[in-house]
């Protein structure tokens, strides 16, 4: 197996594929399973006017929060951004455009985009702001709103393990949006905690097949952040 998908570091992995005004997808839920090293490299590249599709916007100083701070993002497509003060500030004073999207609609838009489905109908959001200006159609007596599939120029993904072919495995709830985003990027770049040889992952355990993955960077022992540390006492 060649190393043709393997890049030495995040900067190299993003070389030649970032440009102003492009659309990025960024995996993760809160700070769980975010491609933090790749996001830092996007910041260092200085690329701006970004449309970023991501469930959340990080927190101040971590994850996508750093791209908000550096004002590299012009539009966010997200379901929930309550954790980010800078986001609220930039949104309320008009510096940042936000497309609030119901979470399940967002993940289905990404799944559809990656699967070559241009649009679909869902009952989520019927009769709300979300449905404004969109086609509503009645199926079997119930109204559904049409939502478009989403793709991105580049998808940034975090995986627990990859082999050199780009077959991916995720860990616990760090899976979240990462598998769909891997399918919806014209170019998908993955940062992985463990990089192994083909054959080392049981093919039955592979969640994302390597066909969706173009570039891989190995980031061993990443610092993982906990937003809300909740515990129970030992009895």
């Amino acid at each position, binding site marked *: 197996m060649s190393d043709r998908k393997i890049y030495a570091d995040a900067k190299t992995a993003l070389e030649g594929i970032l440009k102003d005004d492009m659309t990025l997808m960024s995996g993760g839920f809160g700070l769980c399973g975010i491609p933090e090293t790749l996001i830092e490299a996007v910041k260092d590249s200085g690329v701006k006017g970004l449309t970023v599709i991501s469930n959340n916007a990080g927190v101040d100083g971590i994850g996508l929060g750093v791209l908000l701070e550096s004002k590299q993002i012009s539009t966010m497509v997200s379901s929930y951004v309550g954790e980010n003060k800078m986001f609220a500030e930039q949104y*309320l004073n008009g510096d940042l455009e936000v497309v609030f999207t119901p979470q399940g609609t967002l993940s289905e838009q990404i799944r559809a985009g990656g699967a070559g489905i241009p649009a679909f109908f869902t*009952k989520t959001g019927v009769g709300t*702001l979300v449905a404004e200006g969109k086609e509503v159609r009645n199926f079997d007596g119930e109204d559904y709103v049409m939502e478009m599939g989403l793709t991105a120029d580049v998808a940034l993904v975090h995986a627990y393990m990859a082999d050199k072919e780009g077959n991916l495995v995720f860990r616990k709830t760090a899976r979240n949006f990462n598998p769909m985003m891997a399918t919806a990027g014209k170019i998908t770049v993955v940062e992985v905690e463990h990089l192994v040889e083909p054959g080392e992952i049981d093919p039955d355990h592979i969640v994302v097949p390597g066909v969706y993955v173009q570039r891989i960077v190995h980031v061993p022992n990443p610092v993982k952040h906990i937003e809300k540390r909740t515990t129970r006492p030992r009895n």
Partner: protein
Amino acid sequence: MAWTREQMAQRAAQELEDGFYVNLGIGIPTLVSNYIPEGMEIQLQSENGMLGMGPFPYEGEEDADLINAGKQTVTELPTTSYFSNADSFAMIRGGHINLSILGAMQVAENADLANWMIPGKMVKGMGGAMDLVAGVKKVIVVMEHTAKGTPKLLKTCNLPLTGQGVVDMVITDMAVFAFDKEGEEVTMKLIELADGVTLEDVEATTEAEFIVAL
């Protein structure tokens, strides 16, 4: 006298049934997991991508890769499964989850729900709430009866809606209401009063029209 947060959660737990798959929202709804009757099998769904959610971890055993939809650290159980967010909402939208318990800012007498946005002020987003209320079989709202004296049970929601006609039951600190959707029009029914609360107390703090069915 009215119900405490714990008592509201306890009342909501009475709606659980053996074998239910349940999604709990942030705040008081989360407390419902403390009152699952002994011997009842309930699987909790966390919409980020987990079914079979366990309790908070012991101190020192937190795992950054294992959180619930409120971004709190949780644990797994022998029944746990993990899946993508798209699979998670296929479960929700597809009607495979029996019960969703969530908070609200406003509920109207026609079962409309508003809980995600205050224009020009709060810009957090709806998260998974719109999908949950649209797709889950039964939706229970647990909330304070008023917002510092201002009614939250209204004739019409004046905040942007989360869903139209989606609420099946409301549990407040003062009372329990059920929505009857069998007829042409939705009817809101008062079915229970909290300890020490009178019908007059409820009428005085509720803008919505309701039928008394105690």
